[in-house]
Every structure is written in C-alpha cells, then in structure tokens.
C-alpha cells in the first residue's frame, strides 16, 4: 500500500481539455457576433454551440472544484469543561490529548483548588433548517 497524496488532486490533462473547450466555445461566440450581419444562419449555429460548450465546460470545472473541496476531512473543535470541586467555577478550554471525563484537571484559576473534567463534547452548528412540516 502506498501513500498517494495525489488522490485529492484533479489530473492536469482533464483541466487542459476543459480549458481548451472553454476557449473554443468563447471563440465560437465571438466569431458569431462578428459574422452575424453577413451570415446570420451560421452565426446562430456558432452561438448555440458556443453557449452549450461554455456552459458544459464551466459546469464540469465547478464539479471538479467541489470534488477537491469534498476530499478534506473536517475536524470539529472539541471543548473540555473543567469544574472546580471547591468553588464550583466552570472553565472551558480546547481538548488536549489525555483528557477524559472525570479526570482531575489543572488547578482552579480562582481558588487554586482541584478541578475535575466534567464534559468533553463538540458543538455542531446546524445549517438553517427549512420549515419541515413532518
């Protein structure tokens, strides 16, 4: 098994093909605007094909970009809550390796008393939910 980091990348030749298609489509559209008065029928054909080509290559490019974005693994922030046994003060900090629930934490910042890790969790920010009738 080899570690192949290029799995997340888009092959160069695919990008070249897409860019060539975009250039050709734009050229067709430009040519159409130049000859529209002299050869209107040919100009319309060029315009239609140029527009279809530009839309399709643009869409493919967008899809490839999304694929690269999707390839990342998200690491949500994890918070650790410490509670002082003496004064009851709660403090929240980022999770550190070795933390576990009911482990004694660092001394309390207020009274220097013993603290206890009482919670470790991640908060998920839900996207604006649609009004769902069911």
């Amino acid at each position: 098994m080899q570690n192949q980091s290029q799995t997340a990348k888009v092959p160069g030749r695919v990008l070249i093909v897409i860019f060539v298609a975009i250039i050709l489509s734009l050229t067709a559209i430009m040519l159409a605007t130049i000859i529209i008065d002299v050869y209107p029928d040919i100009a319309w054909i060029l315009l239609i094909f140029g527009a279809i080509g530009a839309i399709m290559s643009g869409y493919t490019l967008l899809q490839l970009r999304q694929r690269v974005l999707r390839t990342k693994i998200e690491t949500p922030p994890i918070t650790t809550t410490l509670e002082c046994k003496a004064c009851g003060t709660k403090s929240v900090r980022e999770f550190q390796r070795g933390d576990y629930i009911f482990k004694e934490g660092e001394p309390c910042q207020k009274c220097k008393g013993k603290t206890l890790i009482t919670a470790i969790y991640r908060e998920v920010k839900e996207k604006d939910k649609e009004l769902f009738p069911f």
Partner: protein
Amino acid sequence: MQFPTDIQTILSMLFYVVFAIFLFYGQRIQMYIMIREVQGSLYRLKYIRDEGRKITIETIKEIGKPQVDPTARVDRFLEYFTISPQNLDPAGVVWKLEHILDVRDTRLKDEVKTMAPAADETQANNLENTLEAGMALNYIYKVIRHFYLLGKKTLSLYVIMQIQMILPLVMREAEAYASALKAFAYGQPIGDGAGALVAAKLTYGYEKRKIAKDCVVATVPIEGRTAFVIKAEGPGGNVGKPGDAIKTVIDENEGKIASVIMIDAAMKLEGEPVGEVSEGIGAAIGGPGVDQFKIEESLVKYRIPINAVIIKEDVGDAVSPMRKEIFDSVDKAIERIKQVALERTKEGDKIVIAGIGNTIGIGQ
C-alpha cells in the same frame, strides 16, 4: 450536395442524431455516468483510507515510541480478517463466535503491544480502536473498488448500478469512520459512549470493583433501591463484556433482582432529533450478539424484567466525537432511569443498571 445552412434544418438534424444516439447507446451512456460517479466517490474513499492509515501510523509513532518503523506492520494489520463460525448446525454457535472474538481481541492487543511498546493500557486500547477504524475504512474502499473495476470490466449496468445505489450510505459510513479515527487517536469520548457516560455519572464517587473482563460495577443507592451500576472500564476505548458482568451480578444475588435497566446509544431515524431519549423493553445492546444472548439467558433463568433506555443518534454521531446534544441528553436519560426504577420496582429492591457502549474518553 450542399451543406444546409438553414438553422431549423440543422437543429432538426441534430435532434434526430441525438435521438438515434440515445436510442441505441442510452443505457451505455447512463452506465458511463454511473461509473464516473462511483469513480468520484472512490477517489474520496481512497483519500479517507490513506489519511486514516497516516493518522494511525503517526499516532503509533507518537504514543508507542516503537524501535522500528511500524508502517509495514500497520499495512499487514489493515488486511486482517475474521472468519465467522459455521452455523449449519446453530446449536452452540454463540460460544463459538465468542471464542473467535476473544481470540481476535487477544491477537489485536498483542499486535498493538508489539507495535507500540511504550503505550499504557488506556493508550493501547485507544490504538486498538484506531486500527479497527482504519481496517474498516480499508475494507470499504476495497469493496467499492472491487465493484467499480468489475463493472468496468464486464460493462454490466447491473453490477455498477447496485454499488451506485448504496453509495450515499456507504460514503456516510466511511466519513463516520474517518472522524472516529481521529476521536480514537486522541482518546475523545464518542457518541456511542452515551450509555457508558450515564453509568459513569451514576457511579462517580462510589467504590468500584472489577466484575468481568474490562467491566466494573458500583453499588449505588437510587430512589431507595440498591442499584448495581455496570460500565466498561475506561477511559481507554473499550466496550467490555457486559453480558458476563450482568450474569455475574445476577448470580451473586441469586437472581433476586427486581429489574435490569440497560442504557445504550441507538440509531435514530431521519427526522428524529439527535439525543432524543426513548424508553422500551429488551436488551439494549448492539455488537455481534454474544452479550445480548448471555443477558437474555440470565434474565430468562430468573424471570427478571428488562427495561431499556436509549439515546438516539445517527451512525456518524455514534462513532465521531460526542455531540453536545448527546452529552446533554445523558442527564435526561438518568432522570428516565430513576423514573423507571420508581415505577417498576419497590423500595428496598435490587436493580441492575448497565451503561452500554464504548467508554473511550470516559473515566469512572
């Protein structure tokens, strides 16, 4: 013959050409689209699998301080398999399965010890879980790749179609394992540990004793009842053997147990909120079924009623770091347990409360 320059003629010709292409090659085009879709997911699966492998190796090097590079051993480990016992004659298959799982567990632990000699017991358990998540990712990737290549080789729409149809669910599972991998590597509590957290909260401050392999029990007074609260021994990644633990407690009390209450994380249906607490009847425990079998055997022997309290979450939440909603629902589950104890048992009764789940990142 003159080339038609009339736009309508050209468009109608184009329409007939497209129609003919789709008439004869429609299915093939559809198949190529499906193959491309599977290929895209396969890229992502490969990335996730490689990342998983990288995280595993890095964690072993960081925690285990091995003398030699563990890469080759990890790669060998990722290809590990377990053959389930023959069930043509189902009598006794549970014990055979238990034996196979015990051997597997011992083997994994030995491998981890060899790979990471400096790791303590908690870290070794976490590493074992990390490796198992890596194994799962490797297996998912290989199965999808198998069907993708088979579909390309045979050009069969039906081979590709069956994998393309389940792909969204497979991807969800793979992404869940990817986040599980990081949680295991860092020793963070996961959603599946909701049951263990309930038991940990109930037993905090009370004396615990070892009751079965990787399981502890504490005697806790709850609403005038004596509760034997069982959980897997944390904070390392561990599910313990709750089947044996419950059986031992019941036997120690000669079957004089008024009720067994089990708490576990359970799969929610789409539309249900994460962390919803529900109550029901039966042994709330997942896994291969060995522990559920043992619990049910013990209950039937003494005719003990069994109640279950579940905390709902989806597959992604179950193996990724615990969500706040799940953490908050633990207190609600404790309230529900007390309510069940009040309603279903009498004062002075003995009850068993078993918090089921992976206790990673949860002490006692």
